[in-house]
């Protein structure tokens, strides 16, 4: 297995190759895709990308935590966290199955 890290630049290149828009436009569109998803999530919406997965915003309540270094008890305030659930298709793809 290779161990590469894919970044925005690689996604831009893929869009440039596949869609045939300019490199600049491709870069802008990749950014916009991420922006639109982030905006929807920040507004508290879930984002469902068919055949890829779903991003869900979850509300976490107040709980007691501990500073692992000092052992001191500290409250963990209520917060919103993001979870990602991969679709069956993505899971199958990652496990080398055809679906």
């Amino acid at each position, binding site marked *: 297995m290779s*161990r*590469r890290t894919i970044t925005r630049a690689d*996604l831009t290149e893929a869009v440039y190759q596949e869609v045939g828009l300019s490199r600049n436009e491709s870069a802008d*569109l990749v950014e916009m895709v991420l922006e639109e998803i982030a905006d929807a999530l920040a507004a508290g919406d879930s984002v469902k*990308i068919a055949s890829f997965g779903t991003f869900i*915003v979850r509300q976490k309540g107040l709980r007691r935590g501990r500073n692992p270094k000092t052992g001191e008890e500290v409250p963990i305030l209520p917060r*919103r966290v*993001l979870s990602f659930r991969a679709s069956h298709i993505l899971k199958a793809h*990652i496990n080398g199955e055809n679906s």
Partner: protein
Amino acid sequence: MTRSQLIAQLVHRNPHLLARDAERVVATVFGSISDALADGDRVELRGFGAFSVKRRDARQGRNPRTGETVPVGVKNAPYFKTGKELRDRLNDGHDGDDDDDDC
């Protein structure tokens, strides 16, 4: 928001972009991420988050209906870690804990 709403939003923001091309942009972005993960690669999108693959060891599972024990083989599971900027945005700029972050 769904995939089709995302495509509509891209078209809305780019009046000269054909709906067909917007669709291909979205398909290419998520297709590239999926293919990278299938190759065992990591995808790091700063400010947004990082996708990686975690190996799940073989284990003894249970059929929830019959209670019968069944072996579950090794498998790989996709994992997403939210980026710092997005995590902060979800909490209106102030995050509860300021732990490490790599993206």
